[in-house]
């Protein structure tokens, strides 16, 4: 018996007279003691589904059809007043951002009491509050703390405590750990899993991370373009993904074992919500598309007990006999995981030619207090870091947020003035340079940022953006030479030539990141600092960008300082890795050694916390 069943949900949005359906025919069931993961890339409609379950859809969107039953009670037909009792009580939801989900001017205790007052008025607020904080692993005195006094992980715990206050039968968690560090993520996931099991709750976990879903879920629903394309038990799905899209999702993941292989890529984009699609929604991007896919939409059909898939490869031949192509592809073919093993273009690191050498680099921010802003101490963001990056090599700098890795990157570029130590680029120390000499040196190192949305000026055309560095650093080039170089760059990063006359907002996240890479490459640097260049992107786009970076390195012999928190990416791409914590390097070495036989406890903790390992080594 399921705690929550959703049948044929369709959500519609009216935009300027047109009717879009971001969720179209989604059916789900969550058992009483079960964790279901709703997995999908951005824009597939998974958050919209969650909001529809809570009946909290944004203005303009509405549930057009579908039935939602919680323990046999139909929720979509309830009047709003009755729904308020369900919401936060029997059905609760945790949001992604712990920063904004808590009211900053109320203590944790007050916010828990607020939920209690609505759903369990008879309960003693402070006693229950303490009990709940213990359950989520927070010290009970935190009841009087304000959200700003808590760390991100503690806030998420407090939020979970709030949601548990109504004793929900089903808890919906919408990307509950995306904003958190990997070690904290592991703790929160473990906590959610433990609470779900001990309380006998249903848990709907919405995530984009295959590994997180694999660690947590009993059953997984894979969503694509507003529909569930595959719905199966965890073991069955991870052993044999059926749908070509799910297979692709697995194939694009970077891993240590995939070093030297080109990552598989998923060309194209998710169809726009207003696109008119006759056949399968994945047909345009599917490697195994055949004629029937374009003419007839597939149904979600059970292929094995408990394993359903929406794909013509598994459909019975169409009754009309029109889908002749279906006979060519037997289901047996689909069971092999498609994994290409193209030679990785990247050369092995040759110890010669140090491009960047950091010696005891330090960045201390003064802490000031009082009316006269006296310096009372220093925050040591970067505290004596020594590193070298060789030519043609990728050095990964790994660490959690606040460890100083971004500050380090900016200090290397002299965007922040270092307070001590030395940065040497190609053997020449940077700290003594100023004015024109520094500007010339900037040609040799460039940076690509994390967020492709804020790294491009929204009011400049792509052509102007790419030209800017050339104008500033290579003024000797004339217009024709500049245009030739820009055209070549666009070609290299795989953008169409007409991109020059368009504005950044017309491009997708992955394309913007390509523009940002092209911009950095324009001045032909020797070192590229990549500050989390793929963490804002979907996994399929991430694979494209990682392939592109590998190609560029092979073609130009470029060195990368790759800053990230994502260990699988490090394992896939980097030659050497340095682990950073609290402004210092705690471990450094070649990738295979560090990732398989770590010396420092912190590296081991990071590795164990990484999703995909079953959360076994994590203490909650």
């Amino acid at each position, binding site marked *: 018996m399921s705690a929550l069943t959703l049948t044929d949900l369709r959500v519609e949005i009216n935009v300027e007279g047109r009717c879009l359906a971001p969720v179209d025919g989604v059916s789900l069931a969550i058992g009483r003691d079960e964790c279901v993961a709703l997995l999908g890339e951005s824009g597939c409609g998974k958050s919209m589904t969650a909001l529809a379950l809570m009946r909290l859809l944004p203005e303009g969107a509405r549930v057009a059809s579908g039935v939602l039953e919680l323990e046999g009670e139909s929720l979509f037909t309830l009047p709003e007043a009755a729904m308020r009792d369900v919401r936060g009580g029997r059905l609760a939801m945790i949001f992604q951002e712990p920063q904004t989900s808590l009211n900053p001017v109320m203590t944790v205790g007050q916010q828990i009491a607020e939920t209690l007052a609505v759903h369990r008025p008879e309960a003693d607020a402070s006693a229950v509050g303490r009990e709940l904080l213990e359950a989520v692993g927070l010290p009970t005195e935190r009841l009087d703390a304000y959200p700003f006094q808590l760390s991100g992980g503690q806030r998420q715990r407090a939020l979970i405590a709030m949601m548990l206050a109504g004793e929900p039968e089903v808890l919906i968690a919408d990307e509950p750990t995306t904003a958190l560090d990997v070690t904290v993520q592991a703790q929160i996931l473990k906590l959610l899993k433990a609470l779900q099991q001990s309380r006998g709750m249903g848990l709907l976990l919405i995530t984009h991370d295959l590994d997180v879903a694999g660690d947590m879920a009993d059953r997984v629903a894979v969503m694509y373009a507003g529909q569930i394309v595959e719905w199966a038990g965890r073991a069955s799905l991870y052993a044999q993904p059926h749908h070509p899209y799910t297979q692709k999702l697995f194939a694009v993941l970077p891993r240590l074992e995939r070093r030297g292989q080109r990552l598989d890529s998923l060309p194209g984009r998710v169809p726009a919500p207003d696109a008119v699609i006759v056949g399968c929604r994945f047909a345009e991007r599917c490697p195994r598309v055949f004629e029937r896919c374009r003419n007839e939409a597939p149904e979600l059909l059970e292929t094995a007990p408990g394993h359903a898939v929406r794909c013509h490869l598994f459909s019975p031949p169409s009754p009309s006999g029109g889908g002749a192509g279906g006979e060519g592809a037997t289901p047996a073919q689909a069971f092999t995981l498609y994994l290409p093993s193209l030679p990785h273009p990247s050369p092995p690191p040759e110890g010669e030619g140090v491009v960047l050498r950091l010696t005891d680099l330090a960045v201390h921010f003064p802490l000031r207090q009082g009316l006269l802003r006296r310096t009372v101490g220093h925050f040591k963001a970067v505290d004596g870091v020594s590193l070298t990056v060789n030519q043609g090599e990728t050095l990964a700098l790994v660490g959690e947020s606040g460890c100083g890795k971004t500050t380090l990157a900016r200090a290397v570029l002299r965007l922040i003035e270092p307070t001590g130590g030395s940065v040497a680029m190609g053997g020449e120390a940077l700290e003594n340079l100023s004015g024109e000499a520094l500007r010339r040196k900037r040609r040799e190192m460039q940076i690509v940022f994390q967020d492709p949305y*804020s*790294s491009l000026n929204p*009011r400049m055309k792509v052509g102007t953006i790419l030209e800017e560095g050339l104008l*500033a650093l290579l003024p000797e080039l004339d217009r024709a030479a500049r245009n030739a170089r820009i055209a070549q760059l666009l070609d290299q990063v795989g953008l169409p030539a007409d991109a020059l006359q368009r*504005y950044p907002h017309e491009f997708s996240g992955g394309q913007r990141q390509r523009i940002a890479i092209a911009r950095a490459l324009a001045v032909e640097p020797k070192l590229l600092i990549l500050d989390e260049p793929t963490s804002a992107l979907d996994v399929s786009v991430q694979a494209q960008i990682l392939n592109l970076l590998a190609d560029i390195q092979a073609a130009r012999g470029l060195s990368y300082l790759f800053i990230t928190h994502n260990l699988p990416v490090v394992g896939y791409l980097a030659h050497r890795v340095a682990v950073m914590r609290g402004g210092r390097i705690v471990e450094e070495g070649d990738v295979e050694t560090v990732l398989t036989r770590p010396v420092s406890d912190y590296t081991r903790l990071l590795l164990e916390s990484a999703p995909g390992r079953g959360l076994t080594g994590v203490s909650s």
Partner: protein
Amino acid sequence: MIPVLLWSDALLFLLLAGVFILVWAMRHRDWLRDPWRQVMKSRVGQGSALILAAFFAIGLLDSLHYRERLPDVPGKPAQYSGEVLSALDWLATPLRERVEKTYSAPLATHLYAKETLKGTDGVERRDYPPLKYPGTHLLGTDKVGQDVLYLSLKSIRTGLLIGALTTLVMLPLALGLGIAAGYFGGRVDDVIQYVYTTLNSIPGVLLIAAAVLVVQVQVEAHAALFDTAAARADVRLLALCAIMGLTGWTGLARLLRGEVLKLRELEFVQAARAFGVRPLRILARHLLPNVMHLVLITVVLDFSGLVLAEAVLSYVGVGVDPAMNSFGNMINGARLELAREPVVWWQLAAAFVFMFVLVLAANLFADKVRDALDPRAGGKT
């Protein structure tokens, strides 16, 4: 007649020439011309542009000044009247010359107050005297019988001048100092913040009053330079604009500083710095375009504020010259009219309607311009 060029006329025509040169330069540059085309495609854009154009046309006509030649007296050189008239005055001669005795309601046939009249039979009685020009005053007449429509039309030039010139003085200060404070931070920020905090802590009216009085003393000391009453009033208006601009930049500057504090940490600015792009270029290419929407909205909203500020200043006695037609003076005059019984409402109503239409049109137009200049909103409007 002899043409008269007041200082404010010169500035206004210079401004107009600047706009013409800009338009000329933009004529063949698609990327500059397209946003304006887009504005002109929308009905709201067309309508508001038309209204604004009408207001500006009236303002410009009112800036073509001249002095009439008095009837020749034989044996003497030609004499010119001391009264400075404008092209608008000439066009609106009927309005200007149809003067009643005192208040009359819009389109009335009789005066607004009863007077003792002697009838044809010689009997004295209290009644509303008939107007000299019954039914011709669309918006009624004021205390001395002047047509309110004429006063309103004459006030447009003052309003536009105050709005435009003050903004011209204020804008470079606000843009330059606000963006510089936000971007450079540190000492630069400290100094600029100190300046605008100091300016803000002095009551604005006091500062303006002091400045206007100083100018007035100077004008009287150099009476030879300003031969007509119009010239004196004009200098006072310019001084008022200048001082309002010098004190009025702080609000926008603070807004821009805050926005730039946010923008300068954005990665596209960091990327530009990594290219070694010079600071002034970063200010102009990366920061200024990204705060333009704030500037546009603030300036247009401030425009109505400035015209109203002029009314307050007139009340204190340091506004434009009392003899000069302005919305401020009209509103100021309405203060006493509203205290009468029955209430004389049309002068206030006329000032209100004219200002409302002007500010509304400017607001709608600015909205459209902002949308058109924002690449993200492209094609939506």
